[in-house]
């Protein structure tokens, strides 16, 4: 591990922390993680070798970008993803590492909701933020990438919803990557206190080509007693950006987390999505769609771990692989001893569009309790040439025929996404990714 080249050193971390007036606890957490990072191993995603991937070399730890002041200044691709419901309401825009626009309605402020950028959260809501940041859900010393993340985190948001507060309109964060030098170490915390309800949607948008980029993203969702969190994400980071994205949640009794994830990056990506169903009667639903193209290597692990009794976990993933894209879909349903009356269901399907595309779906059920139900379905296949023949025999071009088959293949997931904005966005993103 001594050969690992770091693009930053300890003094850079100190400088960054000081420049942002971070509290002492955060600086010491960073330094502690940084010191451990070199000795910790990389994560080992099943069936994908990532030891040659670039997670550590990037242009600069932080780039200063001119902040946007109006939504109309955003690039077209970013304006397009902003849902009508969120447009003027509750939205955060980050340009590379620079917090730009933050709108929070008076209604939410009065209700005690905190929605702010990472630095402000650490500075102005230090006590409450410290409780959640890399304490309960993801730990800094899990492996090298979590440690690097903790050491270098340079953006993201904190969303806290107090007890009994139900937010109807989605809250949105848009992360724009338009500087080839920028590295994204974004951290998102969504903490929903008892009986609260919130929908959060985030977008990663690259509008720049880069030779060598790094995104190391961690999300922590904490759903309190009987709280409901609906979490949507559409990732469209550029080619040559190596992405590690870890979105993880934990549930208190009777809480519910719904994930709607569209992973549409053009670079190599390791995505880990885990829900730990701690409280009795809690519930997790993960829906995910993926389109891979070019020479991408993609690894997706979706995992639901049942600790509480009467917990339910559902995973539904569909992926389309074009060109020479390779993908591994790991679905894991784990029922711990004592989690009686629980149910773990999963379905993964991969459609390959070309001879050189590769897909692998591994459904795994790990069950340590007798009184449970579980099920899985998985398939990997190529486009049926007779389907294309049939569509083309009606005058539809091969390209359009493929588009229809792909849309059809992804429709069972896309059409059932609980967040309207994410559904709409994904339809558009899939269209673009498939056409090129």
């Amino acid at each position: 591990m001594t050969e690992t080249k770091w693009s930053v050193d300890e003094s850079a971390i100190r400088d960054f922390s000081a420049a942002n007036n971070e509290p002492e606890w955060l600086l010491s957490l960073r330094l502690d993680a940084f010191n451990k990072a070199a000795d910790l191993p990389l994560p080992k995603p099943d069936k994908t070798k990532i030891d040659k991937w670039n997670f550590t070399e990037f242009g600069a730890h932080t780039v200063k970008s001119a902040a946007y002041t109006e939504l109309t200044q955003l690039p077209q691709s970013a304006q397009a993803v902003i849902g009508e419901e969120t447009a003027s309401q509750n939205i955060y825009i980050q340009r590379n590492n620079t917090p730009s626009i933050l709108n929070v309605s008076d209604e939410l402020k009065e209700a005690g909701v905190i929605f702010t950028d990472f630095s402000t959260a650490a500075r102005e809501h230090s006590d409450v933020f410290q409780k959640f940041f890399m304490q309960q859900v993801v730990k800094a010393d899990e492996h090298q990438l979590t440690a690097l993340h903790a050491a270098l985190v340079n953006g993201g948001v904190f969303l806290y919803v107090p007890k009994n507060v139900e937010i109807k309109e989605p809250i949105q964060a848009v992360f724009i990557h338009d500087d080839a030098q920028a590295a994204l170490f974004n951290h998102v915390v969504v903490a929903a206190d008892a009986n609260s309800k919130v929908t959060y949607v985030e977008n990663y948008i690259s509008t720049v080509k880069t030779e060598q980029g790094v995104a190391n993203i961690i999300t922590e969702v904490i759903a309190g007693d009987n709280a409901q969190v609906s979490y949507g994400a559409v990732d469209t980071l550029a080619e040559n950006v190596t992405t590690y994205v870890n979105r993880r949640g934990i549930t208190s009794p009777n809480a519910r987390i719904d994930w709607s994830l569209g992973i549409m990056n053009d670079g190599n990506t390791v995505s880990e999505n885990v829900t730990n169903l701690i409280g009795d009667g809690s519930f997790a639903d993960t829906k995910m769609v993926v389109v891979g193209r070019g020479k991408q290597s993609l690894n997706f692990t979706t995992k639901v771990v049942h600790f509480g009794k009467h917990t339910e976990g559902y995973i539904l993933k569909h992926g389309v692989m074009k060109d020479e894209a390779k993908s591994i879909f790991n679905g894991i349903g784990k029922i711990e001893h004592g989690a009686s009356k629980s149910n773990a269901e999963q379905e993964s399907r991969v459609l390959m569009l070309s001879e050189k595309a590769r897909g692998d779906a591994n459904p795994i059920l790990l069950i340590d309790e007798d009184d449970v139900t579980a099920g899985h379905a998985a398939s990997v296949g190529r486009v049926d040439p007779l389907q294309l023949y049939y569509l083309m025999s009606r005058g539809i071009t091969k390209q359009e025929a493929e588009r229809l088959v792909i849309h059809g293949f992804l429709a069972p997931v896309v059409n059932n996404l609980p967040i309207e904005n994410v559904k709409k966005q994904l339809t558009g993103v899939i269209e673009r990714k498939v056409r090129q």
Partner: protein
Amino acid sequence: MSQSTLTIKNLHVSIDGKEILKGVNLEIKGGEFHAIMGPNGTGKSTLSSAIMGHPKYEVTEGSITFDGEDVLEMEVDERARAGLFLAMQYPSEITGVTNAEFLRSAVNARREEGDEISLMKFIRKMDANMDVLEMDQDMAQRYLNEGFSGGEKKRNEILQLMTIQPKIAILDEIDSGLDIDALKVVSKGINNMRGEDFGCLMITHYQRLLNYITPDYVHVMMQGKIVKSGGAELAERLEAEGYDWIKQELGIEDETVQ
């Protein structure tokens, strides 16, 4: 629109290296209804697949031209846009794509970009055709052929025919698996297409279909060739007497192409 002509000359077709068609000659013009009959396994469906460009069939000799253009040089979708249509015996099922979405793509494939048919106009057109075929309106929103019964699939093929309005259509065993009421409805849809600009080739085992759609020409196919042609009366004689008399007349041994 003027009358179209589909000309097939000395067509030889193989599948997996085995020759099925051994020199078929046939000409179909706008306004004409042809029927091809013959025992099982004599190459009737192979002919229809070869005309449309099915990926498994290889044309080894001969030609197919449509209004002078070389059909064999065209991709499947180009053949369709040129005006050919094949109602398939076993249409594919496509999950997640609604019937309406599919049909609208097919209609728009024939129009310039920017000149797509309006949604309202398309729905009116499709609804009217569905009425003729006595199809339930919810069929428009079901996934293409998925879970359709045999009869529903056949109606759906004719719905496509009526909506796309090709110049020459080939109907591959459109009557198989239909009860008499469904056969009448499907026949009504096909007869609606009759006109100087529309030519049709029906492939069938049974004369029954021809009671509802009267052909101008009837051809008998055996051993990969058209061995006899005549008018509607030929079909009636085949129904009454079977194929043995033709075999005897032509000195064909009793063997069929596998």
